[in-house]
């Protein structure tokens, strides 16, 4: 048991617990209204949105899994950097439109928008269910980050249910402050979390190179086949196409995730989103540095040190960063670093559970179950659902094999991408017929899942073969191409069949936003 690290970790956790409850009083609003509880009253300015979106996109799982992938698979794992760079031009161009129309019509979720735009509750239901299902394993994986760092401090390594007690406590705290404070809690805690993360990563990229003899020594220690992507051969594009499609597909998927939509809609203006698109890449730089810690773990040889053998056996390459932290820092700073990762899991987990409960409440409960519900009932329902979602994630991570959560998260990325035609294209045109979109969505889901299935759900990269040339690519993107093709071909047919096109409650001017500097 590493007591020093554990005390520092617990103290920082205590601090954010207090903040989580105090947050209910910050920029006080009527928390019985869903847009107050679930979107912090749409009053978050540029700086807080920066922290919130940063805390949202760059999660505990990211901080553990990206270096782990680089540690295990090498250069291909670095796709996280181009992915989190090219996502921002997309955010800059597309999301202010979503903000504007959502602000005008009090939409809280992407499915709300689809409902309003197409007047088709089945399409809205498909978008809502996809969002919820894609988010659930993501929440579970935030717990994985927490579980790994708690294990790294020597708590509950004996195995058994007793080892999960700290995890349950951490989650109970999270559930309680999310319930009382709504989105204000993660917004406030994100400031602390990101500060800790920046301190930790900057310390790592300074301290480790000093210990092993500079960056040249780190890269020299990496096996040559891991240092670069494998080049195309006579009949395959090898990792080239995989790298590019993973980056592009992930960028498109990112802002369809319900937790991203929630953070974006809570901004106080479209300009806040445009400015954040320019400033958020600072986090991408940080993520790139973090990816490099995977190579640092190789260079320091932590995987072969007897004191870390147990950790690697239990958590596989996900233990690379915790081991590197324990190896490089004094115990008290390891406590700070672990708190950064742990809290780094709570912030997105809170936002994700709020986003999932907004979706369930708005697009399933109110639309299909209790049509006469009052705004106060709606909010009460969302708060309960946020608890249910978190308990579900907790049960998942404690009782089911970890591999399931990782595989489901991988599938979640493929599934959420299939809502792009309805949501993103819908922001610009209503040319696609809602029923055609629904069929396209189903086709994309089916084919994307099948593609992942051919790899035994181990990889999201599918080796598509065209005329003898193998093009390995992100299954989400291939499925999306099919989805688009089906939606485009079927739209005129459904229109001819007089399939109800629904009514559009939005007007072209609803999408316009202020463009001041």
């Amino acid at each position, binding site marked *: 048991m590493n007591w020093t690290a554990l005390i520092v970790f617990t103290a920082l956790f205590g601090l954010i617990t207090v903040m989580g409850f105090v947050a209910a009083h910050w920029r006080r609003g009527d928390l019985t209204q869903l847009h107050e509880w679930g979107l912090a009253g749409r009053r978050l300015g540029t700086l807080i949105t920066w922290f919130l979106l940063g805390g949202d996109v760059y999660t505990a799982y990211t901080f553990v899994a990206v270096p782990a992938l680089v540690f295990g698979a090498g*250069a291909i794992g*670095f796709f996280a*950097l*181009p992915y989190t*760079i*090219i996502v*921002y*031009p997309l955010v*800059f*161009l597309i999301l*202010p439109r979503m*903000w*504007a129309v959502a*602000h*005008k019509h009090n939409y809280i979720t992407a499915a709300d928008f689809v409902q309003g735009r197409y007047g088709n509750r089945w399409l809205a239901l498909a978008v809502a269910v996809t969002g919820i299902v894609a988010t659930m394993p993501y929440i579970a994986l935030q717990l994985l980050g927490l579980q790994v760092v708690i294990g790294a401090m020597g708590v509950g390594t004996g195995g058994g249910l007793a080892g999960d007690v700290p995890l349950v406590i951490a989650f109970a705290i999270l559930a309680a402050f999310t319930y009382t404070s709504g989105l204000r809690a993660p917004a406030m805690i994100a400031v602390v979390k990101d500060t800790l993360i920046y301190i930790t990563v900057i310390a790592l990229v300074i301290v480790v190179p000093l210990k092993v003899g*500079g*960056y*040249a*020594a*780190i*890269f*020299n220690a990496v096996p040559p086949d891991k*240092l*670069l*992507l494998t*080049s195309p051969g006579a009949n395959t594009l090898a990792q*080239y196409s995989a*790298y*590019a499609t993973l*980056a*592009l597909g992930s960028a498109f998927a990112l802002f369809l995730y319900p937790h991203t939509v929630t953070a974006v809609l809570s901004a*106080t*203006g*479209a*300009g*806040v989103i*445009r*400015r954040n*698109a*320019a*400033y958020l*890449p*600072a986090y*991408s*730089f940080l993520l*790139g540095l973090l990816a*490099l810690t995977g190579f640092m773990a190789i260079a320091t040889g932590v995987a072969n040190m007897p004191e870390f053998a147990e950790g690697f056996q239990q958590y596989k390459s996900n233990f690379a960063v915790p081991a590197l932290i324990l190896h490089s820092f004094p115990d008290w700073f390891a406590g700070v670093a672990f708190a950064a990762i742990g809290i780094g899991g709570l912030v997105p987990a809170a936002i994700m559970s709020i986003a999932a409960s907004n979706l369930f409440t708005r697009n399933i409960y109110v639309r299909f179950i209790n049509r006469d519900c009052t705004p106060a009932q709606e909010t009460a329902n969302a708060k309960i659902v946020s608890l249910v979602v978190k308990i579900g994630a907790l049960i998942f991570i404690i009782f089911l094999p970890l591999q399931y959560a990782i595989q489901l998260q991988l599938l979640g990325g493929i599934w959420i991408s299939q809502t792009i035609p309805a949501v993103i294209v819908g922001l610009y045109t209503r040319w696609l017929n809602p029923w055609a979109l629904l069929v396209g969505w189903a086709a994309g889901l089916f084919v994307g899942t099948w593609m992942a299935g051919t790899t035994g759900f181990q990889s999201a990269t599918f080796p598509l073969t065209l005329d003898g040339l193998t093009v390995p690519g992100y299954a989400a993107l291939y499925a999306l191409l099919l989805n688009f093709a089906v939606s485009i071909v079927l739209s005129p047919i459904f229109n001819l069949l007089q399939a109800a096109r629904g009514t559009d409650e939005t007007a072209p*001017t*609803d*999408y*316009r*936003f*202020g*463009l*001041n*500097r």
Partner: protein
Amino acid sequence: MDPDAHDRRPPRWPNVLLIIPFVALLWVPFYNSIEPSLWGVPFFYWYQFLWVPLTSLLIIAVHRLTAVPNGPPDGRDAGGRP
């Protein structure tokens, strides 16, 4: 508020500049090499890091070029709501 703000539509062509990072980062042959390395860091890595600030600067430039100086407050003109 300046009553003409709505009529002075900002130019939209600068948005095209945002294609640049996509080309630079998605065309892998541009950068999948060790040399030229920088302080021991292979080209593959520092090139991609370089695109973080470059993309940021591009977005800031496009934001300024497509914005109306002293225009209406953010988003608040969209629906005419406060």
